[in-house]
């Protein structure tokens, strides 16, 4: 029973990471830095709340959340691909921008500085957090299926081949006729949509939007991407691992065995260790962060 509870909670925590990390893998494999995952998630959460609130349907909320991520993804793409702006700066700007925008419109739409009213989510009103609620949430299934799908997309499709080509050697890709800019536009926009679904899951699962509710999850997802060496399957496993550590910490909270702060450090410490190459070297796509000239 305990194992089952542990597993369910791990999945519940992992879903937003899985969405965001999948988005991160696509964008970074195409050579565009994904510091924006946090902002994408937050915009997805907010737009999903708006959609669900005004329509009364979680499905409409989901679509709105995806649309929010799409918009932010396009903004990221236009700034860093069309205008060749520094991708790191753009990432930070978009993350700050989304925090500001969601706070501002939280005031405008709900006259609150902290949270939205309760909005419909998936499953019934009193679904709780058991296995039934989890199973009745289509985003849970989508998130779990996403990992193998992304593996297939990156390694088994022409699109995936192009993504990897423009991320490793854009000039070579261009010389054989791959439209580098277009592939990157697609990859970044897709990453916006995917990460925003992670945010939408959070908002619909908690039935409301709260200020800065993503709370650094986008950066954990980025950590998973790097720790998973830019591979969709490994990144997915890293997400599950980070989620399991969080679950363990929540379960152990009563015991106060390990301070929660130390558990929260795990993804970040592991990422630094992975980058430093102490346990298996983590090498990013060669053209990551470089605007194509």
């Amino acid at each position, binding site marked *: 029973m305990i194992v089952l509870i542990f597993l369910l909670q791990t999945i519940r925590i992992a879903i937003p990471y899985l969405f965001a990390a999948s988005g991160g893998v696509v964008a970074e494999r195409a050579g565009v830095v994904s510091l924006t995952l946090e902002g994408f998630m937050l915009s997805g959460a907010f737009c999903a709340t708006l959609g669900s609130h005004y329509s009364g349907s979680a499905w409409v909320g989901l679509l709105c959340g995806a649309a929010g991520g799409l918009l932010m993804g396009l903004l990221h793409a236009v700034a860093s691909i069309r205008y060749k702006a520094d991708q790191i700066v753009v990432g930070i700007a978009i993350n700050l921008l989304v925090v*500001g925008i969601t706070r501002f419109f939280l005031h405008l739409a709900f006259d609150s500085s902290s949270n939205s009213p309760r909005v419909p989510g998936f499953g019934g009103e009193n679904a709780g957090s058991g296995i039934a609620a989890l199973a009745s949430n289509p985003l849970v299934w989508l998130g779990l299926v996403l990992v193998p799908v992304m593996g297939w997309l990156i390694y088994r499709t022409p699109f995936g081949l192009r993504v990897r080509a423009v991320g490793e050697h854009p000039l070579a890709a261009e010389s054989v006729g791959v439209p580098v800019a277009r592939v990157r536009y697609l990859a970044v926009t897709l990453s916006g949509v995917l990460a925003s679904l992670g945010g939408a899951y959070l908002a619909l699962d908690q039935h409301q939007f709260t200020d800065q509710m993503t709370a650094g999850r986008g950066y954990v997802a980025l950590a998973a991407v790097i720790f998973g060496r830019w591979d969709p399957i490994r990144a997915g496993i890293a997400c599950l691992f980070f989620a399991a550590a969080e679950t363990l910490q929540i379960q152990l909270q009563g015991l106060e065995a390990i301070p929660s702060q130390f558990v929260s450090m795990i993804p970040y410490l592991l990422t630094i260790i992975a*980058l430093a190459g102490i346990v298996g070297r983590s090498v990013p796509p060669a053209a990551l962060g470089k605007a194509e000239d």
Partner: protein
Amino acid sequence: MSTAVQQTPPAAPETKGGTAASPLRGRLEEAFLPPIVAILAAMVVGDLLILSFGQSPGAVYRLLLEGTWGNAYGFGQVLYKTTTLTFTGLAVALALRAGLFNIGAEGQLAAGGFLAAVVGLVLPAGTPGLLAIPLCIVAAAVGGGAVGAVPGALKARFGAHEVIVTIMLNFIALALLNWIVAAHLHVPETLHTPDIHAGAVPRLGGAFTGSAANWIILLAVATAAAVWFYLFRTRRGYELRAVGLQPDAAEYAGVRVGGVWMRAMAVSGALAGLGGLNFVLGYKHYYEDGFAGGSGFLGIAVALVGRNDPVGVVFAALFFATLSQGGLAINAVVPKQMVEVLQGVVILAVAIAVPEVRRLLRTRARRA
């Protein structure tokens, strides 16, 4: 170094545009056009946000100016915020001059403030300020410098990309400090340490009484001057800029690139750490969890708008401090979060305008 992770080219600090006939004009245009474009973009977005709230933009902007530059208290608050942002802006700018992106100023700022508070707590009450304040200053620099040195060393030794490492270290440093304060050092019912016994710096008196502005602002201005001198008048500063422009060429010329990276990140972290003095010594006289409150991240914006120039950084810090204090001034009419949106817009617009302006100038130079 050849195996090092490919690094993002930072916004190249030196001018490349300008015609042969008027290099000065090209340089001026390259320096000033992006911030002007950014401010115009921010005003357009600001107008839309204000209108969406059913208010008149003119009135709101007037309110913003009156609450910041229009009275002594407001201006004192602006100066207080300028002080912290000058330190974090200098930190990011110095690292960028070395071709490194320090996103860890937030954690370095907190670590600097924390260590300064620890020294202030350890020193016995009655320690003369002449002794206590310099000790706290050193502690802040060491605290921030230690956090900054880690990504520098990891990059030099293993080629780990400093952007990711600094982001991750932010979370680690803040979580660690949160744990130390929450578990060992806090005053019950709060998340701050007890008051420091020694090292407090007086506030600015006179018209500024009541505001948080304090004499650490002098340290900020002096530090900006010192950074300028270091970058442009010393051999090490020259090496640092050479590495930032062209690491391979610098290495070929005999510069130890890894050493420069380590030094640059440590100094950058120390600069951010000094920013903690403004809150700890000058304002509250204790360390409080979360006091950094985004000033480290805003330092990136400050460095960007200030074009990585110490003088530019001071003015950019003043600009961003005005915006964030201005948010409080307009809050009764339009949510103060409007300025957060505007800050984001400014950063984004500068990021877009810098390469775009450079390209335009280059095209013009080619045509001429």
